[in-house]
């Protein structure tokens, strides 16, 4: 497992164009260089997250909720420094979707990146869209 990290190559087969062609919905994140396709909609399990790499090497935690809405926040848990938020349990509290860090259990709002248990802490939230769903 010493494959060099080449995010571009890794995601090359999943450009929006390619996905549109086989009519599968694609999840895209708005990163430093604009919209960036990450994976197919069906790769995501409602209520569970995955981690994705952006072209600049940033790690993003990507989720869909039960209603099918997608969310993305930074994958790094600011309390421990570990890149694990994508592996937390999700839920909703007063209609705010959140993920609880799998390490020390602090919860982060999936839409805003705010920490629900410590207002002084937040993580970056990314814009997400699902393309080609109707197709």
């Amino acid at each position, binding site marked *: *497992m*010493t*494959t*060099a*990290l*080449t*995010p*571009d190559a*890794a*995601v090359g087969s*999943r450009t929006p164009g390619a996905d549109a062609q086989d009519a599968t919905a694609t999840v895209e994140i708005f990163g430093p260089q604009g919209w960036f396709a*990450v*994976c197919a909609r069906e*790769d995501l*399990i*409602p*209520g*569970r997250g*995955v*981690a*994705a*790499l952006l*072209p*600049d*090497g*940033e*790690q993003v935690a*990507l989720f869909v*909720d*039960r209603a099918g809405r997608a969310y993305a926040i930074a994958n*790094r848990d600011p309390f*421990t*420094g*570990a*890149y*694990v938020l994508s*592996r*937390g*349990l*999700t*839920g*909703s*509290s*007063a*209609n705010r*979707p*959140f993920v*609880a860090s*799998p*390490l020390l*259990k602090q*919860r982060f709002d999936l839409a805003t990146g705010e920490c629900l248990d410590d207002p002084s802490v937040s993580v970056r939230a990314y814009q997400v869209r699902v393309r080609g769903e109707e197709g």
Partner: protein
Amino acid sequence: MAAAATPNTTPARPTIVLVGHGMVGQRFLEELADRGVTERARVVVLCEEPRPAYDRVQLTSYFAGRTPEDLSLTEAGFMERHGIELHLGDPATAIDRDTRTVTARSGLTVRYDSLVLATGSYPFVPPVPGKDSTGCFVYRTIEDLLDIEEYAKNSGTGVVVGGGLLGLEAAGALKGLGLTTHIVEFNPRLMALQVDEGGGSALRRTVEEMGLEVHTGVGGKEIVAGDGGTVTAMELSDGSRIDTDLVIFSAGVRPRDQLARDCGLTVGERGGITIDEQCRTSDPAVYAIGECALASDGRVYGLVAPGYDMARVAADALAGQDGSFTGADLSTKLKLLGVDVASFGDAHGTTEGCLDVVYSDSRSGVYKKLVIGAEGELLGGVLVGDAEAYGMLRPLTGSVPPLAPEQLVLPAGAGAPAALGPSALPDDAVICNCHNVTKGAIRSAVTEHSCGTVPEVKKCTKAGTGCGSCVKALTSLVNDELEASGVSVDKGLCGCFPHTRAELYEIVRTLRLTTFAELLDSHGRPEARDGDGCEVCKPTVGSIIASLAPTLGADGYVLDGEQAALQDTNDHFLANLQKNGSYSIVPRIPGGEITPEKLIVIGEVARDFGLYTKITGGQRIDLFGARVDQLPQVWARLVDAGFESGHAYGKALRTVKSCVGQTWCRYGVQDSVRMAIDLELRYRGLRSPHKLKSAVSGCARECAEARGKDFGVIATSNGWNLYVGGNGGADPRHADLLAQDLDDEELIRLIDRFLMFYIRTADRLERTSAWLERIDGGLDHVRDVVVHDSLGLCDELEALMADHVHHYRDEWAETLNDPERLSRFVSFVNAPDAPDPSVRFVPERDQVKPDLTLLAGPTLPVRTLEGTSV
């Protein structure tokens, strides 16, 4: 007075000598330690019995399986910690008050500055001819019980002389040993001291229905001994005769005041060492406490609670604090031969001008009497057969009850109003009689010491930790108080469900729900329905569905369908998340037994993947530092070599530890390794409210530390003893004996039932130890349910476990065989082959450890690390 053993006696370090290490003596030592007196003084204890203090009140539970060690009141290390010198089996034989010395049987002589007598009582044996024949016993110490048990093996019939509290207990014990049992009572009724005539006849009826023969109004005239001086019969005062092999005298107790008499201390006319309100005898350097003392109100108290009060007062006096004992309440609530009996206050109605209110139903053996004073105040009462109301009524004594007395004695359902809650009590009402805790003290534990749960209040006030009869009242008081102080006592699991875990279990089981969404939408709080649940309820419900899966017809595999989203990361990746985002791997090593070949495979896998290797406390091996994407590769090798998941990641059975047992060990009496393997393979994969640990020891030396486990098994020469509710960790607890001398089959059946009952009724993340402490009735209730099948649940519990055993599959083998499942084991969804660059290691002690510098900064410069730029 030769060779006085007084090494440290200087005026600065006084010596306190305690004679008698019984229940009250031990409590006195604890009170001394609490006040720091043991640090300032040398404390010497002379103990007549061969063992340190034990719970005499629970003596009879020896016959229900409690061992002498279980009964011990002396916490391990207590004497050492407080520097107390305890001399076992060495009674005091003389006191010299002029030289202030005590001499013991061994010849040891100790000079004292203060002397405390806590010598208790001796059983009174009426002077009937033949009373010393072989086969005659008393019922006071563990040694007495051991002797009775041994002798009863060759006996068919037994007679108990005395139909009081202790006599009935002794009779129950003989019955339990399989003897035809007679009770001979001189008074016209049973328990004459505690209950009145009506109560006595209700009690008699119930006792007779149990198959005991009751003879009242007669005394023993002679004990007839045959050849060799062995009991063969007892002749009664009415001329009748009972053929019997064994006699137990239980005709009351007398204070042990001989030592005090011999050295000239004042004693009462009818016995008992005279003391003042500070528990001082006629010599101010000598104190007397407990059953040997004649209190300043002219009474000798034969109950433990007043003795504990005296222990406190004497310790106060020695610590220079104020305290006084002026008398105590004789209230009692007991379960005798399974019958609830309680009496309190002026039970016999001796107050002038008092009136009775009586409810009597001899058909069902219920008798209740309340004694009411001229002003309508409650003076006392007797309850037989149904003593539910005791916890409420006793604290009301002396006040006018908020309900009419006739309503207080009516049985529930017979026009009785809703039960009177403890909220009706005044603040100075004593709720816990054993520790003298008032309602006010319990309320302030909640309001001032911010105790938020019943266990916290118990710890803070000691309430409910004695006989336990007040726990129900305590619980409702604590809840009332929490509610009043604005803390809503929402017992709901989380913001999504108003139910407890146990309630959710029942809902899932009876409605056969197999998905979280169904449960949330049908039973969630209105505001949570159609939502996503939360990190508390999702894994809880996931675990409930997993443990019921075979019965519900759901798929038990934890990665499937919706279940995938319910599991926390450990269960999701079937490994344990560590601080840098890597995982650790623990293959199952049943019973801790492993072949050299398998050991080599573990070594090779660890070496090839660069994993940090450590032996766990549960006799297996933990491999640390695997990335998510490495987990399937590591497991492919392990499964290939015959390993399976060890479930170290789950709230599930972890390990069953074992000692080497009979096969190799010269002390072993059973094959503990085989039993541990059997148990581990039987319960592997069982999802539960919290992790489950177990161990099997091959003999009483207990090398496997089974009593520190949720269920622990210790070999005996006759089979296995099963202990439950043990716990290591921050709040260690020794497991309690559930049943003893079981054969293999009985053992497994009992564990099946125990585990399933726990899974069914425990709260989320509640270990068996906390569960046993919390549930109503505690260990006794659990024993009733799983041993005696009091709820008729056992068949169902066994069937659930059979389903589990039958459907067990190795989660890792299944995962490896399923490409769909395997596809989840990647660090990045859009770069399946890329390792996570933040998971790196640095060397330490010839292995690796996480490189935390990578995690320290606000963001990780991935590109420079990997040398790739985008």
